[in-house]
């Protein structure tokens, strides 16, 4: 693999790993593992852990994909691998 393609792939993996860490935090960590301690905090009438499990994680997922689309578009152009 050429150096530039290699760098592109590494940058891609870095981006995806960062986004997947957030993905893990809002669902597994806030929504399941830490749900009970978080439930003592209230958000708009919801216990916070319960809110993450039934609302907050979903909003974050949508945002994550659009951030990915935007960042990948930048990477594609930077390394000149974009489609016409």
């Amino acid at each position: 693999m050429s150096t530039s393609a290699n760098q592109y792939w590494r940058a891609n993996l870095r981006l995806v790993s960062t986004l997947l860490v957030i993905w893990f935090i809002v669902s597994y960590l806030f929504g399941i593992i830490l749900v009970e301690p978080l439930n003592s905090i209230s958000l708009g009438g919801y216990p916070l852990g319960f809110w993450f499990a039934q609302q907050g994680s979903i909003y974050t997922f949508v945002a994550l994909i659009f951030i990915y689309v935007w960042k990948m578009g930048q990477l594609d152009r930077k390394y000149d691998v974009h489609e016409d």
Partner: protein
Amino acid sequence: MDLQTLTYIVVGATFALYIGIAIWSRASSTGEFYVAGKGVHPVANGMATAADWMSAASFISMAGLIAFKGYDASVYLMGWTGGYVLLAMLLAPYLRKFGKFTVPEFIGDRYYSQTARIVAVICLIVASITYVIGQMKGIGVAFSRFLETSYEVGLFSGMGIVFIYAVMGGMKGITYTQIAQYVVLIFAYTVPAIFISLQLTGNPLPQLGLGGTIASGESLLATLDKVLVDLGFNEYTAMKDTTLNLSLLTLSLMIGTAGLPHVIVRFFTVPKVADARKSAGWALLFIAILYTTAPAVGGMSFFNLINTVQPGEIAAEDGALKYEDRPTWFSNWEKTGLLSFEDKNADGRIQYRAAKDENELTVDRDIMVLANPEIAKLPNWVIALVVAGGLAAALSTAAGLLMAISSAISHDLVKGVFNPGISEKGELFAARLAMAGAIGIAGWFGLNPPGFAAQVVALAFGLAASSIFPALMMGIFYKRMNNTGAILGMIAGLTSTLVYIFWFKGWFFVPGTEMAANTAENWFMGIQPESFGAVGALINFAVAIVVSKLTAPPPEHIQHLVEDIRVPKGAGQASAH
């Protein structure tokens, strides 16, 4: 106008619309039959994917599970949305770059092996058929209520409609029909939710209403927690299952989402690699509208149900509703056999309690969404709309799945392996024959479904998670993965998960053939069958990596192929190939 007539009119009108679109855009070539000529706009494709994706399990069953399980059902919400993040970032753009018709075709080419392709076809069929069984349960429930007949008659009518519908169109017809179905189903889901949220909390947004306060000035969720505890149940917002089980089920649903062939194939239909990424985002946005509304539908419908059967004090003798005073929706659902009352203490009142020997009301969870507008006394047209929406959800997914099954059989098995010289006409005929077979099998299982629609569907996700997802992901991210590793990995993942499920649910779901009772004491490390897909996926990864390290690396041209799919530049044209 009475409800029955109105329902016929609304359901009839929406069906006429779908069929009209299907005829208008009838598939003419094999390429169009499977992937719609690859020219679908990302937003349109996102909407069609959302309809394809949101099935009877999402529309009819999920809010019912949320109602009766409270917090624990959050796994379905997170699992079925979080999977799109994986799909968008790990699979969709690369599979689009590769540019083939079907998922087994990718696996066959990437692992340079016909055996790999055949194994992928088997994995695909097992997961998809299980998924269709879940749809059949949902369709059966919707039709039985709509026709006011038994569940069985409802199921058979539904099978007939699905057959006519899926066999007539193809992917091209389906894409546009599915956009129409998305509009119908999202309207049907959100309208009653808005009404009920306004009724209970005065907030028109169900997403905020669930956190709102009710007429008494108390918070809705806190009141629900309190009432449930008084009836002997656990709190609505509390965790009841184990952290391990909930995490594994969420993971199974997520990676299953990313591994389900009928969803993946949708990303072959957009013009560019960048569009495949965008399309996943739009799909999830459209899905999120329903998924963030569902918790409100679940919580509020359950609150209304309890208030209906328990209008007075729980401790008071006359607190429960008299059976002879039961509302019309109650007696209508009794006809389907999905709701029943047994007067155990012979006082003529409906006691709904946690204790099995005191409880007199049995409610099939799958009826909650359909019964919800009736329980809340919403106008008849809203109720008719919900029936039409439920049918749209079930039909769109069933059609997408049948398409995946039939293309796997006709394109990958018949044309790809057994009879490469088959004519286009012959291939289309094989595809339609495969669909008919799949509907028959799924309908037969639907008579004795191994669980609620959403639970059966969860099993399907476990199967997809354990077999297809790892093979696809390693195909892109692990250049060293070879044919032997991938094949043995898929076989190990699928078999372990399938055996675990059959062990507790009966061989081929036949009641009475379970090897052990389906209870927490018998489960391996307390893992329920629905959650096992994540473990199966781990087994798949482990077997594949170990075997691959011990055997010869893939040939050079395959390594180049992997390098090539990692960059968007040079993706194939948007036309059929």
